[in-house]
C-alpha cells in the first residue's frame, strides 16, 4: 500500500492545490480543515505523512504537532506564511520534520516529501557512513573529507556539525537543535559561534561561500545540507 497523506489546511483552495499536486504523483490524500478533524483522521486512518498549516481555526498547529509526537513519529511538513519565523522554529523544535513557506512551488513541496520519505526509510537501514555528492566525498567513520579530489582538514567541532547535517541531509535543522546535539546546550550567544563555524565549514567545502552548493542557510531558522 502506498503512502497516505493527511492535508490539514483550512483554506479550501490551497488544500485542493496540494491534493492535485500529490494526486499527480500518484499519492493518495485525506483532507482536514480543522484540528479536530485532523486528530480524528489520525486516530482512524493509516496516515503516513501530515502536511500541516499552522494557522488553524480551532487548535493551534503547534499543539497538533505536540499531540501527534506523544504517540507517533510520522513525518510532519509544516506550511506557513513568510513572516512567521518564530512559529516555524517552534514547530520544528516541537518535532515537525520540515517546513514550506507560502507561496511554495510544487517542486519545493515534492522535494520536501522526498527528503521526508528518504529519512523515514533510512531509519530501518544501517546508518550510512560514506556520503558522495558531485565533488564532495565524506567518510564519517574515517573522519575524512575530500573536496574535488583533495583532502580537506576540518576541526573536530566542524566535523561534528557537518556529520550532523549530513545524517539529516535535505532536512532543515534549527539553530537550537544543532547546538543541543553538538554543544549539549543552546544559549542565545552560541548561535553566533555556530555562524562562525558554519562560515568556516563553507569556506572549506564550497567554491563560493556566498553561493553555497551544499550548506544552505535558512535565514532566521537554521541550516540545511542540500542534496539536490
Amino acid at each position, binding site marked *: 500500500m502506498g503512502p497516505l497523506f493527511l492535508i490539514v489546511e483550512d483554506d479550501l483552495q490551497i488544500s485542493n492545490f496540494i491534493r492535485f499536486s500529490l494526486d499527480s504523483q500518484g499519492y493518495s490524500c485525506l483532507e482536514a480543515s480543522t484540528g479536530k478533524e485532523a486528530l480524528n483522521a489520525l486516530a482512524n486512518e493509516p496516515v503516513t505523512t501530515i502536511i500541516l498549516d499552522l494557522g488553524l481555526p480551532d487548535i493551534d498547529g503547534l499543539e497538533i504537532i505536540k499531540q501527534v509526537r506523544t504517540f507517533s513519529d510520522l513525518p510532519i511538513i509544516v506550511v506557513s506564511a513568510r513572516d512567521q519565523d518564530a512559529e516555524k522554529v517552534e514547530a520544528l523544535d516541537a518535532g515537525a520534520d520540515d517546513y514550506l513557506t507560502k*507561496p511554495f512551488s510544487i517542486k519545493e513541496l515534492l522535494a520536501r516529501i522526498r527528503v521526508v520519505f528518504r529519512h523515514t526509510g533510512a531509519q530501518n537501514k544501517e546508518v550510512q557512513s560514506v556520503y558522495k555528492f558531485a565533488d564532495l566525498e565524506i567518510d564519517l567513520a574515517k573522519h575524512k573529507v575530500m573536496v574535488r579530489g583533495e583532502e580537506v582538514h576540518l576541526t573536530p567541532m566542524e566535523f561534528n556539525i557537518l556529520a550532523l547535517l549530513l545524517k539529516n541531509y535535505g532536512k532543515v535543522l534549527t539553530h537550537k537543535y544543532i547546538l543541543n546535539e553538538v554543544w549539549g546546550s543552546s544559549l542565545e550567544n552560541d548561535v553566533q559561534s555556530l555562524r562562525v563555524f558554519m562560515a568556516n565549514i563553507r569556506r572549506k567545502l564550497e567554491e563560493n561561500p556566498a553561493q553555497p552548493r551544499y550548506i544552505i542557510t535558512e535565514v532566521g531558522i537554521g541550516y540545511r545540507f542540500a542534496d539536490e
Partner: protein
Amino acid sequence: MIEQSKNLVKFKFISRQIGVVLLLTLLATFLSFLIRHLGFTEANIVIVYILSVLLASRYTRGFIYGIFSSFIATLSFNFFFTEPVHTFTVYDKSYIFTFIIMLLAAIFSSTLTSKLISAKEKANAQEKQAQTLYEITSSLAKTRGIKEVISDSMQCLSNLFGCDVICVITDEGSRKLETKTLQKNTGNTHNSELDKDQLNEFIAQYYSEPIQVQDKKVCIICLPQEVADINQENGYLLDSVFIQITIAMEREYLNKEKETAKIETEQERFKSNLLRAVSHDLRTPLSVISGASEMLLHRLDDPEDVNVAQGIYEDSIWLTRFVENILSLTRIQEGRLNVVTQLEAVEEVIAEAIRQVQKHAPNHNISVTIPDEVVFVNMDSKLIVQTLINLLDNAVKHTSPEGDIYITVTLDSGRVWFEVSDNGTGIEESSLDRIFDIFYLTDNHRTDAKRGMGLGLAICKAIVNMHGGEIHAENNTTGGASFYFFLKR
C-alpha cells in the same frame, strides 16, 4: 479735538486744586479771627494756618499746591494779623522770623504729606495691577482653544481699560483676515473681514500689539491710542497683560500641535494596519494562483495554453513580491522604534537573496565577490534580504536573460559596502536622483511591457536608512547600472 478736551480736563483739575487751597486758607483765616476775638495768643493763629497747609497738602495732588498753600497762609497771616494790619509790611521784626518758620514748617509738612499720599497711591495702583493681572491670568488659565483665548483676552482688555478692543487674526494663510471687534458699551463681539493689503494701514490707526508664538504672528490686538498713554502712567500693566496672553496662546498652540501629532500617528497606524490586513489576505489566494498555474504549466501540452499559464504564474509571483514589499513597508513604518537587529553573516544573507531570486530567474548569471574573512553586521536579516532581492530583481528586469549581475561586498573603516551591478540598460540620467521615491517608475510609457517595482527601491532606501546606512545608484561607464549601500559594522 482730543488735544482741546485734554487741556480742558487739565484746567479743571488745576482750578479745583487751587480752589481747595483757597477755601482752606479762608476757613483758617475765619478761625483765626475767632481766636483773636476770644483773646488767645497769636501762636494759636500760626498753628491754625499750619493746619490749613497740612489739610491742603492732604486734599490736593502734588506738593506744588502745598507750597502754594503755605505762601498764601503766610501772606494771610501777615495781612490780617500782624501790625500794621491790612498791609504786607511788619513793624515787629520778630514776625519775619515767625513767617520763615511758618513757611518752612508748611513746606516740610506739605511735601511730606504729598509724598506719603503719592506713595500710598502708588501702592494702591500696584495692588490693583497685581489684582488685575491675577484675574487675567486665572481667567486665561481656564480657557481652552485658541479662539477662546482670543475672545477672553479681548474681554479682559476691554474690562481693564474700558475701551473697544479689535483683534485681527493673522494666523490663516487666506487673503481675507478675520477681524473681531468687541464693543465696550454692548459687550458684543462682531466679526468682519480685512483685506491683507490693508492690514498695515488698519493697525496704524490704533495702539497695536502683535501676539507671536514660535516666531509666528497669531493675531494683532488693537486698542485705542489713549490706552497707550494711560499705559505709560500705569507702568507695565499693558505689557504684562500681553505677556500673559502670549503665554496662554503658546500653551494652546503646543496643545494643538500635540493633538495633531497624535491624530497623525493614529492615522498612520490605521493606514499601515489596513495595508497589512489587505496584503495578508492577498497572500493566501496568491499562493493558490501561483501554485495552480504552476501545476497547469506542467500538465498542459498545447504551447499556447502553456503560455497563458506561464503568464498567470509569472504575474502571481510578481504580485507576491509586491505584497511582500508592502508588508515590509508596514513593518518599517511600525517598527521604526523596535526593529530587532542582531549580528548576521553577510554571506548567508546574500546567499538567501540569490536563492530567492534564482527561483524565478534561473538563467541570469549572478556572481558574488565577498571578503575572505567572515563579516558580521548588525541587521534585521529579513529586511536586508528583502533589500538585496529588490536590487537583484531590478537588475534582472533591466538585463537580458543571459545578462550578468555582480554582487560585491567590500569593507572600509566601520562600514560594509554592498554593490549590486549589472550590464543591462542602465538608468536614465534624468531619473537617477528620483528612483528611490515611492511609486516612481523610470519610464512610464513602458509600464505595460515591464511592470515597475516602484515600491521596491523606495523600500530598499527605507530599510537601509533605518539601519543607519545610505543607498546610491549610478550608471556604469561600461553600461548597466550599479546600486551601492552600506551598513555600519
